[in-house]
């Protein structure tokens, strides 16, 4: 009986294989034919072919379900016959225990492969002073957690394998053991304390900056709006002029206030160019919704919040050119992109960041356009005239 079923099952498998192969071939042919039909005639042919594809996959899945059902039935028949003959049936505890240990071995292999193969695709070394500290801490945390990860997973699945159930045995009655419980409360507490202290001081060093604007660092303003970044450099006086969101309009995209004299020499730029080994203070603003300034190569991230100006100070240490040679990628660019959901265009809100030597920076900054463009000057003049006439009228009325 079971044998009969097995033949049946083999036949089905081969039928399934033929079906899958033929179906895929036919679909491929259909795919190849689709461009021709859509090019020559209406869309209908293309659509029906797609439905054919969907239908094919649904059918494939149904056949798969059918195969699973048959395997299930075979197992059932096998178990019943064994039971009738009073022989041992399949011991599912042993089967599952064995799968657990297979999973453990395969999983450890997979995790190792993933850690080495995909791990090597991650970000290159930090290109900023504080980034190196973050990377060191990352390394420490990774080593500690990976040890815990491997030990606990190995214990979990090998216990599952070793202590798989049997009717002959009884479990060991062990409700508690205060000593060992104390040990594994205190041990993680100590490890975590080390990580907390280490992390706390690193975090303080990175964020606790007492210098104000324009002191000992280059002030650059980054403003996010849907879906782009605007840059403003402070100009010769090294001071960013005041601004207010109420002044935004026309050519005054950032709402710079020209009552403040520091505003007159401010500059705009398309690329965020910064000199190497000089502290840079990014003054982060947002106009409409929350954005996030994310520069992963420098380990820099801070949200741009409307109504809440924030800043991040960092010192780049590797120029773009140096990074290009290091990574052997002549096209490499540092990037600044948005990392807080901000709308439909969120996935493409980037700005190229270029780290250059100081002399290159000075050369570059001299060429940048002033924020106070001719168009803006015109607008301001017009506004001033309007105000004057308004005042005159008021005076006349009096």
């Amino acid at each position, binding site marked *: 009986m079971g044998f009969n079923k097995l033949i049946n099952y083999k036949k089905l498998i081969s039928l399934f294989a033929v079906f899958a192969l033929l179906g895929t071939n036919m679909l491929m042919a259909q795919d190849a034919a689709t461009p021709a039909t859509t090019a020559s005639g209406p869309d209908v042919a293309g659509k029906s072919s797609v439905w054919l594809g969907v239908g094919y996959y649904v059918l494939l899945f149904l056949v798969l379900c059918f195969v699973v059902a048959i395997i299930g039935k075979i197992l059932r028949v096998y178990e019943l016959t064994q039971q009738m003959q009073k022989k041992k049936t399949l011991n*599912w505890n042993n089967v599952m225990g064995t799968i657990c240990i297979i999973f453990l071995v395969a999983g450890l292999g997979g995790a190792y492969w993933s850690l080495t193969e995909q791990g090597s695709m991650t970000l290159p070394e930090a290109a900023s002073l504080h980034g190196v500290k973050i990377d060191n801490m990352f390394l420490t945390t990774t080593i500690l957690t990976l040890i815990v990860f491997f030990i606990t997973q190995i*214990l979990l699945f090998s216990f599952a394998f070793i*202590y798989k159930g049997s009717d002959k045995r009884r479990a060991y009655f062990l409700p508690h053991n205060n000593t060992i419980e104390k040990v594994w409360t205190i041990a993680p507490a100590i490890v975590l304390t080390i990580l907390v202290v280490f992390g706390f001081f690193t975090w303080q060093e990175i964020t606790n900056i007492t210098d104000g604007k324009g002191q000992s660092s280059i002030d650059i303003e980054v403003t996010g709006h849907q879906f782009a970044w605007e840059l403003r450099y402070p100009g010769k006086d090294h001071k960013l002029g005041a601004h207010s969101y109420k002044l935004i309009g026309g050519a005054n995209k950032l709402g710079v206030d020209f009552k403040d004299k520091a505003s007159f020499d401010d500059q705009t730029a398309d690329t965020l160019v910064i000199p190497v080994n000089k502290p840079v203070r990014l003054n982060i603003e947002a106009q409409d919704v929350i954005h996030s300034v994310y520069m992963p190569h420098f380990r820099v991230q801070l949200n741009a919040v409307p109504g809440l100006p924030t800043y991040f100070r960092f010192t780049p240490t590797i120029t773009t050119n140096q990074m290009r040679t290091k990574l052997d990628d002549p096209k490499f660019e540092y990037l600044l992109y948005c990392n807080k959901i901000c709308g439909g265009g969120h996935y493409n809100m980037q700005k190229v960041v270029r780290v250059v030597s100081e002399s290159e920076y000075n050369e570059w900054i001299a060429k940048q356009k002033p924020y106070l463009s001719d168009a803006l000057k015109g607008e301001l003049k017009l506004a001033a005239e309007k105000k004057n006439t308004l005042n005159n009228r008021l005076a006349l009325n009096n």
Partner: protein
Amino acid sequence: MSTIAVQDHGHGHAHHEDGHGHHHDTFLTKYIFSQDHKMIAKQFLITGITMAFLAMIMSILFRIQLAYPDKSFPFLETLLGHFAPEGHISPDFYMSLVTIHGTIMVFFVLTAGLSGTFSNLLIPLQVGARDMASPFMNMLSYWFFFMASIVMLSSFFVQTGPASGGWTVYPPLSALPKAMPGSGTGMTLWLISMVLFVASSLMGGINYVSTVLNMRTKGMDLWKMPLTIWAFFLTAILGVLAFPVLVAGVVLLIFDRSFGTSFYLSDIVLNGQVMPYEGGSPILFQHLFWFLGHPEVYIIIMPAMGIASEVMSVNSRKPIFGYHAMVYSLIGITVLSFIVWGHHMFVTGMNPFLGGVFMITTLIIAVPSAVKTFNWLATLWRGNIRFTPAMLFAIGMVSFFISGGITGIFLGNAALDINLHDTYFVVAHFHLVMGSAAIFGMLCGVYHWFPKMFGRMMDAKLGYLHFWLTFIGAYLVFFPMHFMGLDGVPRRYYAFTEFESMKRWLSVNVFITWSAIVAGLAQVAFIYNFIHSIFWGKRTVQNPWNANTLEWTAPIEHFHGNWEGEIPTVYRWPYDYSKPGAEHDFIQQTVPFSQTMESNLPEDFEDNEGALEEQQKWANTQRANEQVK
């Protein structure tokens, strides 16, 4: 306490007669507006599973977009209409899918579906009560939840699409209807749905707390409660304290959206137009949201922990290791979870000093979590493990909890979070630690208590197939995401085609998508098994798993009132498995110590000196008898 228990006992008979009076139940009172906790549990479960399937389909839709950003799928246009023009999911609709997937999974599946199902089913049955403290409020809780689900899903039928600002709905994006299409009517519906949901959750939570505190049967003191009940009890407390804060946040957001206030809005220029809002703070919403949001992730994981603890103990045929430590760590998590919310906000521009403080509290919470993990491992050690599907899911839950938990140590560290915040590393972290782990806890509970719910058994072999496909699938989906995150790939990106550096992850994305599809299809094995077993499964015996807890002393057939005659009295803790000297490898909670003289231990009489004397007397006579022999 004992007086109340006795009182309840006294009322037992009246209740019971009441139970017999329910014979002429109509379809409406039995299946729809039922006040029986067991039926309400089933309603929560089936609604939860339905919502889980919908949210899973959404995730596969957006995974298809991530794997094949350049390919056109005309069937998507047929399916989704203008949300997928020319067979491409539109960026706005992609955001909607991500948002609603997250909302449904977090709130509707893993909060209501998990807590709602198992708290309702197990609290009365495991503490020995005839029903919840307020059955009517319990019914309302389900119907509010149902309405919330309908309102949430109805937003797919709105022209501008469902809410799309992420499940955290940070304003100003969610507050300004012009900021994105989903922030229009879809967002309004999201907010209405959440208010209904929180109402449901509160009514449920108050019921759970009061039932556990007031309606335990005779002898069931707090330290005799199974860990499931401890977990549900503490979860309910968390929910009752945290959810109202979300309502406050949501109501203020409704005000900002509809009545022109500026609680969260200030200095805004949208599309070149200066907005009149002044003086609000978007960070305020984040504080209010995460004051719920962080306890919320423990609301999700604690019931799963409780269920896994119970199932692991039953199927290892061994007491749970360190019962007291397990309870104290749950309490520790409950308390600490209220003071860690700031770790979601390290890079929002919040005062960095605060960030440092939140980092300390966050990493402290890893200690009770570690204790729980080690105790689970010790429970397996030298057990006699019976691999039921429920047991496998419990083991899977522990595995996911470890894998996802340790990445929390990275993210809880403010300095490391700078570079990891909002990347795929976070996606991997929470999908493992609270997504997969909690859903495995839920599935574990379904397989384990299915006989209690439906009086029939689920097919174990299909359960095995379901487990391994889902378990391996989930790891294949989420493990590679860590490395994407470490490469600075942000979450919630519609496509990675605009960045040269992200294009190399495309092959990984294809792999993840196919793993997700396979894992998704594996759920068909579950749903078939579930539905088939409800009607045609093998009939169960009263105590199919040889478990100790009280629910297995109740008769298989359901009636309002749970036990015929008196509610059983409880004499011992629920974990007397494989006690040396005992006849069977389990002793139910209802068995008094006087019937198990040969297996009693001195610890069993810590607060009962009289009984200890009896025991010693018995031991002495035994010894004397042996000497005579």
